[in-house]
């Protein structure tokens, strides 16, 4: 994992689920809450907590965490508070990855403008899920299984390493399905970028060092592919 530490701001129902899902994946984890009631609730659930208010200068974060491996989740009750928290954090920590929850698209835009790296609009996500479950129930079920870590079929990101035999080849020169029994869904052209293109568009892609392949397959075949292209030596 790229990040060693995480902070979740807030301890409402959304924050609780985020905490529940991510807390064990980090060496250092803390829940920042705005009131005593939430602090007691988070402590009772076994989490390290800290009180804060929106006028903080965030000295405690600098003291407690390595900012190069820290990620924060803004999940306060109100969108306005999340926007203010995001802008407040961004004003101090220029490179800190901030993931924020937004009630709707309007708040999502404000959070983006306030400096959030990633915004999760709750209404849109839920509406997508509802329409997916009713319109494409099988797709929804399968995709839900694929993103589950315990599923035999997984979706992974593989970064093309130095000296890989695929560097310089065209994407469609390789029959990924026949050779490795995997499906390459998308490709990201440059390291660090999150702009990907779907292979289903049919545009052939020149594979370079540090390109990222988004691959679906089972554990064994993904491992086989990783070895073949030199990710695992």
């Amino acid at each position: 994992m790229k990040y060693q530490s995480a902070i979740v701001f807030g301890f409402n129902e959304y924050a609780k689920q985020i905490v529940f899902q991510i807390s064990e994946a980090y060496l250092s984890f803390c829940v920042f809450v705005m009131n005593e009631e939430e602090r007691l609730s988070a402590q009772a659930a076994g989490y390290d907590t800290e009180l804060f208010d929106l006028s903080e200068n965030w000295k405690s974060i600098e003291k407690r965490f390595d900012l190069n491996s820290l990620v924060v989740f803004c999940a306060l009750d109100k969108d306005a508070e999340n926007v203010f928290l995001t802008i407040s954090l961004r004003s101090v920590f220029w490179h800190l990855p901030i993931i924020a929850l937004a009630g709707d698209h309007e708040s999502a835009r404000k959070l983006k403008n306030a400096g959030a790296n990633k915004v999760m609009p709750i209404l849109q996500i839920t509406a997508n899920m509802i329409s997916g479950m009713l319109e494409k129930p099988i797709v929804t079920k399968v995709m839900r299984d694929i993103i589950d870590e315990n599923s035999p079929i997984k979706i992974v990101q593989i970064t093309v390493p130095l000296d890989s035999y695929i560097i310089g080849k065209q994407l469609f020169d390789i029959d990924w399905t026949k050779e490795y029994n995997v499906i390459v869904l998308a490709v990201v052209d440059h390291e660090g970028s999150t702009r990907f293109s779907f292979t289903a568009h049919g545009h052939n892609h020149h594979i370079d060092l540090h390109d990222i392949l988004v691959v679906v397959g089972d554990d064994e075949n993904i491992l086989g592919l990783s070895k073949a292209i030199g990710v695992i030596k």
Partner: protein
Amino acid sequence: MIGRWIVGLAFFLQASMRYRHTKRFFHNLLENPAYPYKKFFDYMMILLIIVSVYILIRHVKHEVNNQWIYFNNYIISIIFLIEYVLRFWIYSDMTKIVTEQYEHDLFLQRPFRWKWALHLILKNKAGYLFSISAIIDLLAIMPFFHELRMLRIFILFRVFKLFRYTKSLTQFISILSSKKFEIFTLLVFASVIIVVSAILIYIMEANNPESRIHTLFDAVYWAVVTIFTVGYGDFVPVTDEGRMVAMVIIFAGIAVISFATSIVVSAFTEKLDEIKEDKLVDDVSKLSRFYIVCGYTPLAREVVERFIKSGKKVVILEKDISKVHEAQKIGFMALLLDSSSLSSYHTLKIDFKRQVEAVILLQESDVLNVYTALTIREISNHIKILSILNQLENRRKLLLAGISEIVYTQELIGLMSKQEIGKPIAFEVINALYTDKKGVFIEEIILDAKTRTRFFETVTQPLFHKRLLVLGIYTAFNDKFQFNPSSELEIRSGDAAIVIGTAALIDEFKAMIYKKGNR
């Protein structure tokens, strides 16, 4: 003896399935707007009325074929007579009145009073006989009994029968009937003015040789024509006194017209919402397949927008009028109905099994969603119900209420946060497949043994190879997903292939595997 015979007949008819089915059939045909064949019956009756009136008009100046006269006087009249008798029959249940009276007398240990039972039946049926619509029906049959030229005018009563078959006319009458008192007041006012003015003008003008008003009828005719601001000019007052009366009646006429206009306008304004609601209910009952969304919330708006975008029909049920207006303003089909009440669904007159795809409960209270789910389960055990879960501890209650799918947004956000950190790009890819932001979609294609061969053949064609990604096949019988399947995989009816590609390519692919003779 007669009493026993009447009771015996009543019980026999009540027990007879054929009698009950026949009566229900005619009730549906004549009175039930939701009955699919009623509209054909109505169209036929409207056609008969038009033919009848056409013959009447044609007969004024032209000779009409005797066969048409016969058709008009006898065939159409007999059809109307049959309809009149059927309506009389279905108006109430005579057998029920008889058996109830019999059981009542039996309980009080006295002989069956059959004459009283007949009295009750007649009293009940009189309700039909003296109703305005039944009187019009009867008068419309009159040409059958009289071929006298003057009585042909009764054919015009057939035009009034149109009220029975056209909803808009019925609605117009019901709107005006809500202002009965005002209309009555107006009529009294106009009548008083007409009578007083007619008498006055008669007194002033009748003996004047230059005046054309000679009789009281002339005077009444003049007063009516003047008060309703028509003023043909065929009768005009010539004396100063008469003109004074004319001036008064002209002013009164303006008041009458204004009053009449305001009554009609206010009646329509007051009933406008009701009319719109009725129209909407009618429209909903005619939809073939649609989703029902219970509760109009910001989430409901997002959900409905998605369905409408994909060409699906959605009906929103909401009991808060301001929210209904808000939804209607956007153009959604929203009805002011309490989704947790059984009567709301009866009002809608819909066939759940045939028309409803699924019910989506999006109210911001688990209590309401559970209550609504139980109401829907009373109507249909099989309809799919999806609900949002507001409080985690209520999940089991929602399941017990018969909700088929539960969406707990908070859990969803938690899972997504995990993905977002671990595999942000992979997560973005999945997200993009669900929306149309990148022009690539994920679709499920239902297969069966027949389409199986064509599916595997088509997918290897150059057009689709490497551009249409077959993620796998979901086999329904064992609830398994076969990733990257081989062409040897056994496919059963109901299995689904999951493919990823551009919309155009997926459409083309579907067209090829479902093409005629393959499905």
